[in-house]
């Protein structure tokens, strides 16, 4: 389950709303009430949420690919079952999230079509390749770890269906990070080759994982509205810092070196990390990451190859309906 702060603001849509209703809506949010699908909501709230939830859903589905890449090569049967179950969970989470997005008025098909057309974003992290088994451990440990930081506050998001989906997701996710950490621990306690494999994976994933939290607060334009609407409860940098502080001791426990030699702990106990290469982030989001093309191509292929199956099921349902009607008419 992955989300990423990718949204841009919708200032333009806001003025058209009736001011009194907007004030009433804001009062409900301020009172920590949950907004439900049929409730009145500002168009910009609907649009922001549709985009955020569908991006979140796309991320789950695209996120199946890098880990799915190792299901057939998992090194033990226990690991294989755990990985298959985990990737399947991500599919389930995508499904819950599409359903939550659909309550805002767009169909899953529309949302998926936008993603396949390259018009909707998904988390940048899944545009990096999984080269070794240690990447599976690292994804569980760091990517899921980062995702959990992002997702726990979303369980209290103001939009009811999203919050409920996130509660279910967070409950199911609890094994994912542990699964990844256990893989890393086994590698780090293993042979020299295995330990090198673990370090190599950490070296490659560390910076992309820090980017998952989104642009730094001073350039993130939309946080204000999202915070006001209680869609977002912590800033990108706050969550990133929380993640780094939680991760450093885990890396130390594993005996791995975080690939940021300038990193130091400040007087407050926070680990200060070096500047992040935001140009890389921008490029990956713009479609120029190492695997963007493969990821989209894989999703398009699954969609296109499955078209005749979906058509067949629809055709059968139609036939059955007309047969039943004919029977009833007799």
């Amino acid at each position, binding site marked *: 389950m992955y989300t990423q702060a990718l949204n841009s603001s919708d200032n333009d849509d806001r003025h058209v709303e009736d001011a009194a209703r907007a004030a009433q809506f804001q009062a409900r949010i301020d009172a920590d009430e949950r907004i439900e699908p049929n409730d009145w909501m500002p168009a910009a709230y609907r649009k922001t949420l549709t985009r955020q939830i569908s991006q979140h859903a796309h991320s789950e*589905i695209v996120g*199946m*690919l890098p880990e*799915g890449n190792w*299901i*057939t*090569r*998992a*090194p*033990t*049967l*226990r*690991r*294989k*079952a755990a990985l*298959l*179950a985990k*990737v*399947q969970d991500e*599919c*389930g989470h*995508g*499904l819950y999230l*599409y359903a939550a997005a659909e309550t805002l008025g767009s169909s899953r098909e529309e949302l998926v079509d936008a993603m396949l057309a390259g018009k909707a974003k998904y988390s940048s992290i899944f545009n990096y390749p999984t080269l070794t*088994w240690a990447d599976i451990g690292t994804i569980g440990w760091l990517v899921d770890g980062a995702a959990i930081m992002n997702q726990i506050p979303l369980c209290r998001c103001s939009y009811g269906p999203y919050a409920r989906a996130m509660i279910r997701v967070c409950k199911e996710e609890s094994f994912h990070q542990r699964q990844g950490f256990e*893989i890393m621990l*086994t590698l780090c306690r*293993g*042979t020299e*080759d*295995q330990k090198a494999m673990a370090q190599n994976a950490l070296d490659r994933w560390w910076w992309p994982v820090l980017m998952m939290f989104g642009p730094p607060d001073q350039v993130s334009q939309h946080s204000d509205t999202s915070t006001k609407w209680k869609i977002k409860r912590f800033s990108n940098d706050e969550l990133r810092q929380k993640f780094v502080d939680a991760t450093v001791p885990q890396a130390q426990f594993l005996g791995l070196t975080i690939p940021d030699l300038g990193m130091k702990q400040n007087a407050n106990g926070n680990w200060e990390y070096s500047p992040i290469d935001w140009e890389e982030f921008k490029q990956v989001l713009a479609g120029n990451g190492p695997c963007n093309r493969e990821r989209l191509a*894989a999703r398009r*292929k*699954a969609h296109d*190859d*499955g*078209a*005749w*199956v*979906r*058509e*067949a*099921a629809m*055709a*059968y349902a139609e*036939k059955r309906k007309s047969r039943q009607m004919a029977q009833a008419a007799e």
Partner: protein
Amino acid sequence: MAVASIKVSETPLVLYTLRRADDALILGHRLSEWCGHAPMLEEDMALANMGLDLLGQARELYTYAAKVEGKDNDEDKFAYLRDVVQYRNLLLLEQPNGDFARTMVRQFFYAAFADLYWRAMMKSKDTTLAAVAAKSEKESAYHIRHSSEWIVRLGDGTEESHARTQSAIDDLWAYTGEMFAVDDSERGLIDAGIAIDPATLHPQWLKTVTSVVNEATLALPKNNWMQQGGRSGRHSEHLGHLLSELQSLQRSFPGATW
């Protein structure tokens, strides 16, 4: 530097158990290949569930085979350190996924057998096999339900889905006979009440398969020449590729724990 294959003392019970374990692993592996690529998310969930059921069956059976064999083999050594000719699964199950119709037909042919097989095996005098059977029967009962619903929809759906499903049936039919075959090694176990004679399941299997195929407006092939060989290690070319992927890590890192 590659890790060598293990030696297995294939006493009748070890061999018998390994054959069923290999069935479950190979089909489970095939289903896991779908993960992330199914025709709709709902089916991605279903295929993974069935794959996980089968992986679970494989693990229990391998563990039991290791116990019966009494050497230092275990589930992972059986799965990861035997070569193609040492694998004992049915040819049907190693056939590539192909399109969704082919995967469903393979699943349907096997589940229609497995459901009957495990139900009969619940009466095995071997209490471990009887316990595995009790669990597996419930799983395969769902697999047959799921796959037969799809066979009906694909067969009676569109012209394209009908053609694809019929071609899958035509191609896979020759692999179904092996499910009902018995060799000398199994004969003794059948006589001892540890195994059941699968030939006795054939009429019921054929009845189920025929009725679903008819409902789906499809037809079973007339040719009854059946391929054999998986049970004794004479496989199709597909299995080698499956195993080279499955076993790559275990084979390339001697002495590693994962």
